[in-house]
C-alpha cells in the first residue's frame, strides 16, 4: 500500500468522501473533464409523454458519441432538469445551468412554449442553442440571434394535405382544431396556404381544450359541405371528431388530422374507421437521410421501443452541434453560432438549414395515411411508401 492510497483510506474514514472521489477520478480516467451540455425536459406534467421520446434522442446520441471517444477528445455529459412542463420553471433551471453548473453548451427543451421562454437565457448569455422541439416560428419573429430551430416549421405540417387536395381537385376545405397554441398556429396559417394553392376555406372554427362533444361541429361541417376536412387535433379529439363526423354522416373526399393519428395507437383505438385518414409526421424510419437506418436500430437496441419524430429531431440537433464543434475544433460560442446560422448539415431529419431569423427551412413534414390498419408515408412522392388512397372511403356502418 503506497502513501497515496493510505491517505485516501484515511480521508474516506474522516468523511471527506466528495473531495477524494473527485481527486481519484481525475487521476484514473481521462485527463480532461467532460463537456457538459445542459437542457431541461418535461419529465412530469402534460408534455411528459412526448418529451420522453425527445430526451431519448439526446441520450442515444450522447451514448453513441462517447463510445466513439466523445468530442475534441473529451467525454460528453448531458445535464438535465425536469421542468414539469412549466416555462417559468424551465427559465430558472436554464439560468442555473449557465450560472451555477457552468455548462459548456445549451440545447433546447421540449415544446414551443418552453423554448420561447428559455430562449432569453441563451440570448442574454450569448450561448448558441439549437432547439429541436419548437415548431412554432413565432419566437424567431422577435429577432433571436443565438437560437436556431431544429424542427420542421408547424405550417409545413399541413403542406401535404393541401397539396393532395390541390392535385385531386378538392376545392372546398373545412378547418377545425383545438384552440391552444400549437393547433392554432397551424390553423391560422392554413387560409394563406390554401389561397396560394387555389383552394377555398368554407369553414374555420376551433373548439376548446377538453371539449365535451364534437357533434355540433360535425353538423356545422356537414352544412358547409366541404371536399376536404382538416382537423388540427391531438389524440382524443381526433377520435372524438372522427366518430362525430361518421355519426353525422359527413362524407369528405379527404380527411386529415394533423397530429393525433401520427401515434401508432390511433389504429387500435379508432378501428376500421382509421383507414383512409391522413396525418403528418416530421420523420420516418424509411427516410434515406444521413445515418437514419443506424439511428433507428441503435434506438431500438437502447430503449426497446421505436423512436418517433421527437427522438429523431433531438438526435439531429446534437448531430448539428457536433458538426459545428468538429469543424471549428473548439467550443467557441461565436464560431458555433456562425456555423449553425450559415451551414447546411445532413442529419437523420433531412438537411438542417436555417434562414436569417433562425427558422428551419431544410426540414419538411411528411404526410401519412392509414391503410389496412398501418401507417404509410404517401407524400411527398420522393418518400412515398404507398400511393395515397383517395377519395376517403364511404363510412362502413
Amino acid at each position, binding site marked *: 500500500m503506497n502513501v497515496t492510497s493510505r491517505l485516501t483510506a484515511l480521508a474516506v474514514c474522516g468523511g471527506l468522501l466528495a473531495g477524494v472521489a473527485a481527486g481519484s477520478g481525475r487521476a484514473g480516467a481521462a485527463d480532461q473533464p467532460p463537456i457538459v451540455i445542459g437542457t431541461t425536459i418535461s419529465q412530469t406534467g402534460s408534455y411528459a409523454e412526448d418529451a420522453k421520446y425527445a430526451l431519448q434522442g439526446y441520450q442515444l446520441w450522447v451514448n453513441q458519441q462517447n463510445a466513439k471517444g466523445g468530442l475534441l477528445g473529451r467525454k460528453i455529459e448531458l445535464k438535465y432538469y425536469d421542468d414539469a412542463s412549466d416555462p417559468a420553471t424551465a427559465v430558472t433551471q436554464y439560468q442555473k445551468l449557465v450560472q451555477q453548473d457552468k455548462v459548456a453548451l445549451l440545447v433546447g427543451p421540449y415544446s414551443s412554449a418552453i423554448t420561447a421562454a428559455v430562449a432569453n437565457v441563451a440570448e442574454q448569455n450569448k450561448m448558441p442553442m439549437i432547439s429541436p422541439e419548437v415548431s412554432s416560428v413565432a419566437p424567431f419573429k422577435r429577432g433571436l440571434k443565438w437560437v436556431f430551430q431544429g424542427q420542421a416549421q408547424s405550417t409545413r405540417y399541413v403542406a401535404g394535405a393541401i397539396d393532395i387536395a390541390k392535385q385531386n381537385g378538392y376545392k372546398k376545405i373545412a378547418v377545425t382544431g383545438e384552440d391552444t397554441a400549437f393547433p392554432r398556429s397551424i390553423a391560422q396559417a392554413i387560409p394563406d396556404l390554401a389561397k396560394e394553392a387555389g383552394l377555398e376555406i368554407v369553414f374555420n*372554427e376551433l373548439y376548446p381544450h377538453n371539449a365535451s362533444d364534437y*357533434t*355540433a361541429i360535425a353538423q356545422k361541417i356537414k352544412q358547409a359541405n366541404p371536399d376536404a376536412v382538416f382537423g388540427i387535433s391531438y389524440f382524443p379529439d381526433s*377520435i372524438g371528431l372522427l366518430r362525430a363526423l361518421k*355519426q353525422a354522416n359527413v362524407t369528405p373526399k379527404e380527411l386529415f388530422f394533423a397530429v393525433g393519428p401520427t401515434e401508432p*395507437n390511433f389504429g387500435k383505438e379508432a378501428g376500421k374507421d382509421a383507414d383512409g385518414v391522413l396525418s403528418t409526421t416530421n420523420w420516418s424510419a424509411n427516410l434515406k437521410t444521413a445515418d437514419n437506418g443506424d439511428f433507428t436500430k441503435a434506438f431500438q437496441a437502447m430503449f426497446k421501443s421505436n423512436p418517433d419524430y421527437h427522438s429523431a429531431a433531438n438526435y439531429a440537433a446534437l448531430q448539428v452541434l457536433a458538426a459545428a464543434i468538429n469543424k471549428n475544433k473548439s467550443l467557441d460560442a461565436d464560431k458555433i453560432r456562425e456555423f449553425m446560422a450559415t451551414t447546411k448539415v445532413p442529419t437523420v431529419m433531412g438537411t438542417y438549414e436555417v434562414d436569417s431569423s433562425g427558422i428551419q427551412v431544410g426540414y419538411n413534414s411528411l404526410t401519412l395515411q392509414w391503410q389496412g390498419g398501418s401507417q404509410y408515408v404517401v407524400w411527398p412522392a420522393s418518400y412515398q411508401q404507398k400511393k395515397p388512397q383517395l377519395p376517403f372511403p364511404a363510412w362502413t356502418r
Partner: protein
Amino acid sequence: MRPELVLQLTIDGLLLGGVFALAALGLNVIFGVTRIVNLAHGNIVVLTALSAAIAFQRFGITPIEGLPVAMVGGALLGVIIDRLILRRLPEDAPTAETTSLLLTFGVSYFLVGLSLAIFTGDFRSVAYLTGSWLVGPLSIGKSRFLAFAVAIVIAAMLGVLLRSTKIGRALRAASQNLDGARACGVSIDRMRTLSFGLGSAIAAAAGALLSMIYAVNPDSGSQFTLIAFSVVALGGLGSYAGALLGSAILGLAVSFVGFFGNTQLGAMMPYVVFILVLLFRPSGLLGKSVA
C-alpha cells in the same frame, strides 16, 4: 331554417342528453341517500371505460356483452369505497359534509393513480357501433342511441325500485329522514352501502357505453364528474326525473348553442347553466327546496 336541420339538432341534443344522464344518474343515487357528493364518480366511469377498451381490444368482448360484469365490478368498487373509507367518518360531526367531499376528492386522485398504473396514460376507446342509422336526411348515432336508451331504462328501473319495493322504500326513507328511518328499523349503514354500490354500478354502465363514443385516459374522470354534477344540480339533487330533464336541457343547449353560436360557447353551456341554477333556483328544477 330548414326543419330537418332543427330536427337533426334536436335528435343530437337529446342523444347527448342521454349520454349526460348516464353519467349523472349514479351520482344522484349516492347523493340521495348519503348526502355525499362523490367526486370520484367520473373516475369510476373512466376506469370502466378503460377496462371496456382492453376487454374489446384483447378479447373481442363488446361493451354490451361486458355490461353485466362491468356493473358488478362497479358495484363492488362502490361498496369498497364506502366500507373502507367513507364509513369511517362520524356521520353526525358538524364538518361531515366538507370532510366527505375532501375524502371523495382524495379517492378520485387515488383512482387516477391506480388507473395510470394499470392502463398507462394512453387514450383508449372502443371502435364498436361507431356508425349511425340513416333515416331520410337524418342520422342517428348507434352508440349514442344505445347510451340514451340505457339511461332511460336505468332511470325507469330506479323509479320502480324506489317506489314499489321494500328496499326502495327503505332507501327513500333514509334519504328523507335518517333518524326517522332508523327508528322504523331501517339499517342506515346498509342503505348507504347499497346506494354506493348501486350508484357506482350505474357509473360503470356509463363507462362501458361511453367508451364507444369518446377516447378517454385516466385524467378524463373530472370531466365526467363535472358534467354529472351540472346535470344533477340543474335537475335537482336527488331527483331522478330531474336528472333526466336536466340532461335533456343541457344536451339540447350544447347542440343548438354549439351550432348557432360557436363551439366554444356550446362547450360552456353546462357550466353556464350550472351557475345560473345555483343563483336563481338552488334546489334545481325538480328538487325539493332545502329549508
